[in-house]
């Protein structure tokens, strides 16, 4: 081989080893040659390496951190009383500029004030705390149940016939009906909402997982594994579940924002919860949309809800892309 660049040649004296040491004879070792030496591979390390390779992800993640900070830390630090200006009619429905001038230059008033003189900015973040928490809890419950049921559903033929029937029937009962009946039986509180969104919500996820499991189930490597006597549970946990990590993360990326959207939708048609969530803020400020000068009360929660859902979605999608081992090259 011809060396073009002499700079690449190593001067032996640089290695600070004696010549005898450098050219010592090494015996062949059968045991050692069996060892496969490759760089240590950690799946999640590679996932994050790929994830952070894209600049846009760092920006989005920062945005995500800011949203989380405002949602969970900001409400702990401020004292928000929606009725503090209730008696002051001149403090209601103010645009940001007017509110800052009238009520003092603080972060509370940068989005103006609402129908009862409350700070729109505070209301939005207190609302998003409820909405985001609900979305996370619903996603956690639905994903756990959905993945567990879905993997069994994909494996067992008998269970498949039964569950497909259940899926077809439950899928045809209007979702709104379930929710409204539950809201009427219990109260329109936070946990009722979580219950209503999870009681049938896992079915769709389970169905999706079932289809994925069926696709991978009969691949050759699983067949081989089964021939070698691996129990089904181990195949499900060790062979199939890791394969679906990226699918599950991608699914989660669509699920979490969808609960926020759904909560907004339910509040809008008057079936939401009684807590001041983002959806309820939008519902209550609807009339303000077409009133000149009041639009901020309406568009602020709408914009924040949209930003939250978009950020959650994009983070999830990109994490899903990164967790696909085919992108780790």
């Amino acid at each position, binding site marked *: 081989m011809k060396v073009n660049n002499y700079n690449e040649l190593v001067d032996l004296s640089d290695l600070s080893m004696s010549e005898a040491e450098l050219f010592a004879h090494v015996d062949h070792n059968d045991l050692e040659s069996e060892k496969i030496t490759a760089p240590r591979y950690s799946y999640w390390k590679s996932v994050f390496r790929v994830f952070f390779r894209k600049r846009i992800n760092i920006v989005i993640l920062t945005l995500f951190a800011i949203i989380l900070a405002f949602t969970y830390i900001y409400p702990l630090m401020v004292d928000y009383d929606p009725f503090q200006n209730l008696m002051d009619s001149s403090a209601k429905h103010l645009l940001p500029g007017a509110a800052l001038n009238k009520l003092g230059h603080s972060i509370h008033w940068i989005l103006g004030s609402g129908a009862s003189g409350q700070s729109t900015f505070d209301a939005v973040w207190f609302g998003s705390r409820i909405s985001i928490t609900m979305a996370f809890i619903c996603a956690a419950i639905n994903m756990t149940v959905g993945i567990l049921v879905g993997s069994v559903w994909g494996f067992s033929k008998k269970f498949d016939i039964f569950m497909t029937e259940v899926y077809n*029937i439950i899928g*045809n009962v209007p979702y709104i009906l*379930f929710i409204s*009946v539950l809201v009427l*039986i219990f109260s329109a509180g936070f946990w009722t909402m979580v219950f209503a969104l999870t009681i049938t919500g896992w079915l769709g996820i389970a169905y999706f997982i079932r289809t994925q499991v069926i696709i991978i189930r009969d691949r050759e490597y699983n067949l081989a594994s089964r021939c070698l006597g691996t129990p089904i549970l181990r195949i499900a946990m060790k062979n199939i579940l890791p394969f679906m990590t990226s699918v599950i993360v991608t699914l989660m990326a669509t699920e979490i*924002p969808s609960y926020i959207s759904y909560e907004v*939708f339910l509040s809008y048609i008057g079936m939401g919860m009684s807590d001041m969530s983002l959806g309820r803020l939008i519902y209550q400020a609807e009339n303000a949309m077409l009133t000149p000068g009041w639009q901020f009360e309406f568009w602020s929660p709408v914009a924040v809800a949209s930003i939250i859902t978009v950020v959650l979605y994009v983070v999830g999608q990109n994490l899903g892309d990164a967790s696909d081992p085919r992108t780790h090259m």
Partner: protein
Amino acid sequence: MTKYLLRRILHGLVSVIIVVAIVMVLIYSCLDRQLIFAQDPVYVQLGNNQKTVYQYRKWEDFGYIDYVPYAEWLQTLVASGELTAERAAELSAFGQKASNDSEEVAEYVARFTAYYEGQGYAVTRLDAKLSKKKVAPGGQQQLFAYKDKPLMGRLWNYLTSLVSVDNIHYVQEDVGQRGLTFTLHDPVYGGDTFAPAIIGNGTLHKYLLYTDHHFPFVHQNLVTINLGKSYTVNSGVDVFQSMNAPQGSYVTRVLTYPTGLTENSADDLHSATYSAGSRDASLVNRDRFTDDYTSVVTIKSGLSKVGYSFVIGIIAVFLAYLIGVPLGIVMARKKDKTIDKIGTVYIVFIIAVPSLAYIFLFKAIGYSMGLPTTFNMDSVDWRMYALPIISLALPSVANLMKWLRRYMIDQMNADYVKFARSGGLTEREIFSKHILKNAVIPLVHGIPASVLGSLVGAIITERVYVVPGAGNLLTKAINTYDNGVIVGVTLFYALLSVVSIILGDVLMSLVDPRISFTEKGR
């Protein structure tokens, strides 16, 4: 294929029946019955026994229970000829307490109790509430029997009365010669013009078959579909009717009634149904009608609820496919170029942002462009359709783009594409003739669902733009506890979804000959 389809349809119908049963359990058994009185102004004013009786009467109206007051039972005895009307009136005066009953009354009360308890009813007797030796307001004595309707019986009754065929023995009263007459000259049009019609006597509808100038020109009243009576949303009217009845302002024209009276009126004589004793009861009817077929609906200028939803929905679906499919193809062809990136941003926007938010955004943009933001049935301004249609179409455009792009990119590395390329076909030909044909197959499956889905209407869009469509029917019914409407609408939705999945499969097998549902092929 036919056998397979028949099995699928049967299977679907069974699922639909189970869905209806589940909904019935949800609304009749799980919900607190007391809720229907929450906004009832009458309920608040009533007191004592009257309040209790009012409760039971309402529960019967809403379909929870069978409720029979003592007096009503006596009336059935009168009808069967056992008692005379005067005697029944005497017997119906039961005492303020059981010990005050006269011997005869006590005997009948005992019979009433025995008869209904034998059928599983609970018989309740409320003694009069007295204050200062006089009956307190609403405190009169009451005697009635009631029973919860069992699920199976309710389901059976509901399903058997879904389709009713009119017959000449429908009317129980004496109406003279029963029968059907076929005429070539419909009396509604004066009896001179050629207009075939079948007129019944003894039937519910007077006109069983008639012709007019509106599509589809020949109409029938012989077979009626009953999805369930509404109680609060549209009192006393069947759900199917309230979904399909025209809305808007009256259309009046010069009309000659059967008596010869000519008047400017919106009545539709073809819709006449029997209403016992109605002619003698009112002077208005006596002037106009020659028999008891006096109950008519009026002609209105607007479309029905389903009509508005469908017009908006179908145009939106059409637009969505017209825009979404070419854009999806372009995105797949120019993968990772600018147009693909812009498209992806749009798709992310539609998926992630709550639908409420972007509909309001469209509304605000439309408003600033001078488009009407509210719907008005009496207006002739066609621009009012624009915003609802756009709001429905744009999200489905995103959906179509997303899937078509995905499917096309998945196909791009297939062997047949490489083969076509090596054969020297242009990229354009490969995309439009080879990849597209394979990529649209999953999309074809969704076409019947989106077309039939537009009958159902869109909840948010219709609410935001005040469209009088069918989308709000369910939410409105839930808010007013109109159980009949909830069950009826659910059945309608479930049937549509079952039918659209089956149609989707059929359409898919028509488009792609490789897909076959005959079992031998596999």
